[in-house]
């Protein structure tokens, strides 16, 4: 009964959001694109990093790969195939990177993923300088903002379904064990490397697609634009705020934070960075386990029941 109810609710919400471009003006659509983009990024990020507690800063590496693929092939490949190509390249990179690095753990993994974004950016730059001899690339695709909005909405819905499905499947259970204790997981007969790799690949492909879908909005792409590290940090903080190991956690982090950023940059353009830094610090100190867990703990405390502290992602 409750499953039918929640799936009906899901369908209603997606359908309602799909109608937004018909009622909202173009700024509303722009806001929607930004919000859906970050919701998808944060959910995809939490898909892998939530249960495994591997904090990844490679978001922008894949995001940029998606954007760049569109820029490079926009004139030679028809649009739907373009997205497939971008996804395939993202998948290939994720597999190579995953195979070589998922044995790293803790802070080493964080450093590596941060370096990966920089590495990809430098490789693209090197290639463009020495092989093609141009740096910026132009994207002239007849994609309207509404088109981008609907594509992102579709991708966001698919990401949610994947996340929901994984949460209920054997692989999701395996991930939770890995996140709690890898040694125990290995002794239970879980193929740690394969599970982690699969999740990393799915998450990376989704992130790549977000970049590919959003790229036509920029018209012009160069490595510093496509591989802007802020995207990695914002995604991370949004997922952490919401709660990275809940289905709706990243959503509840991304939407309010995005609206807050938008409000801040419209009203306090000169103090934005300072306020942003303070918010980051506040999130880490006050809500290390995310809004959802915070609300739930207090709810239970109020009901005088036992509180079970979940370890935070960064712990």
């Amino acid at each position: 009964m409750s499953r039918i109810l929640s799936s009906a609710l899901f369908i209603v919400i997606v359908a309602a959001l799909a109608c937004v471009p018909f009622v909202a003006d173009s700024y509303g659509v722009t806001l929607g694109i930004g919000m859906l983009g970050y919701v998808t990024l944060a959910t995809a990020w939490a898909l892998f990093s939530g249960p495994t507690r591997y904090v990844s800063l490679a978001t922008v590496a894949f995001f940029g790969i998606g954007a760049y693929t569109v820029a490079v092939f926009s004139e030679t490949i028809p649009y739907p195939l373009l997205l497939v190509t971008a996804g395939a390249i993202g998948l290939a990179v994720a597999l190579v990177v995953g195979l070589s690095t998922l044995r790293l753990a803790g802070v080493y993994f964080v450093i590596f993923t941060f370096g990966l974004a920089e590495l990809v950016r430098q490789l693209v730059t090197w290639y463009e300088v020495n092989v093609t001899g141009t740096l910026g690339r132009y994207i002239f695709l007849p994609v309207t903002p509404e088109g981008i909005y609907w594509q992102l909405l579709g991708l966001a819905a698919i990401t949610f379904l994947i996340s929901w499905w994984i949460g209920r499947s054997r692989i999701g259970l395996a991930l939770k064990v890995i996140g709690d204790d890898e040694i125990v997981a290995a002794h239970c007969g879980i193929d740690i490397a394969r599970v982690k790799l699969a999740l990393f690949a799915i998450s990376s492909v989704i992130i790549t697609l977000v970049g590919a879908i959003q790229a036509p909005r920029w018209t012009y792409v160069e490595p510093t634009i496509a591989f802007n590290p802020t995207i990695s940090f914002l995604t991370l903080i949004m997922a952490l705020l919401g709660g990275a190991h809940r289905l709706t956690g990243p959503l509840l982090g991304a939407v309010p934070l995005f609206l807050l950023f938008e409000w801040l940059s419209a009203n306090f353009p000169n103090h934005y960075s300072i306020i942003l830094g303070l918010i980051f610090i506040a999130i880490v100190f006050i809500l290390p386990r995310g809004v959802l867990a915070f609300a739930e703990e207090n709810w239970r405390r109020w009901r005088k029941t036992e509180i079970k502290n979940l370890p935070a992602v960064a712990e």
Partner: protein
Amino acid sequence: MKSFQRRRVLRTMALATTVLATGLMTGFAGTAAAQERKSVKIGYAISKTGGNAGGAGITTLPNYQLWVKDVNDAGGLELPDGKKLPIEVIEYDDRSSAEEVVRAVERLATQDKADFILVPWGTGFNLAVAPLFDRYGYPQLAVSAVTDKAPDFVKRWKKSFWMLGGGHDYARALAAILADAKKAGMVNGKVAMISIADGFGIDLVTAARPAFKEAGIEVIYDKTYPGGTSDFSPMINEAKASGADAFVAFSYPPETFALTQQAQVASFSPKVLYLGVGTGFPVYGKNNGENATGIMSLGGIDPNNKMNADYRKRHEAVTGVAPDYWGSVITYASLQMLQEAIKRKGLDKAAVSAELASGTFQTVLGETKFEDNQLRQLWWTGQWQNGQFVGVMPADRPGASKVVLPRGEWKKK
């Protein structure tokens, strides 16, 4: 029971957020007051923080501030009926992010309902916002965008204006100087060339290679370096050993300053020294004093143009810093053109765009006019002479100074 309640809480929260988000998106559309207008809204998004803040803070932002002050001190923007309305500024920081600049311009156009929008800084950002300017019908006076594709962009976006030329223009002018010097027997026609592996460096170096070849100049040393390079002594030593007596660097400001210092340390004084962005900064002339003399770069000014001299003085008095010798004066001139077009046609964006495209304007550059929506009255090459960075190419443009070559040895301090 408990878990059921938890679910319900979760679901309610998710629902509430969604409804809130949808409501906000639709509700954000502010209600514009339709009363009598008391001001003209001019909006812009500029990189006040992040990687582009340096360039934007030198070439673009001070000129916007200076212009707004100039106009408001004079009583405001004049309209065709002689009425004057003060400028109301709406300023956003795009934080050097392409997605942010797109959103900020969209916000300016649809939420703030700006009457006119000024451009962001940088080639990439001007292109990112070009479709928006076009869709909402704003004229786009793109100053800090060096691009060879301007003729194509003009066809695509009819109300866009490109005011700083393309890489080929600058490369050809430099090639002509070198070819003349070779003809006069002053240099041996061999060039050592380095460039930054970034948009600007690549654009110029890919334009320079064929331009030099055409002019009969031989490039015997050709290297690119990544942004942020601070030690140039290996490159300088190799260039010195290569036998070239012209050294060209398509560099960004930090490297331009470093190259100047390190060439002095290495006693490398080629007869022709051409450096990239930053050479035209007033601080470059101040730091290097007499040693700057003879160094060439992009841009320049006509030292005898009184209006430009007045502008430079006013810029320094109002903003506290002197303008650079390349894009600054063009930025200010673009604003004067907009101001004059508004005076002639009012606040109708389409009429103002048409007037900009076809009209002739008096600006700090002198008489200014677009050709096919592009400003072509530019100094392609400038040279430090007597403490000023003067325009030397095109040599036949009125007000051009003569190139002085070879430049002398470094003076040791």
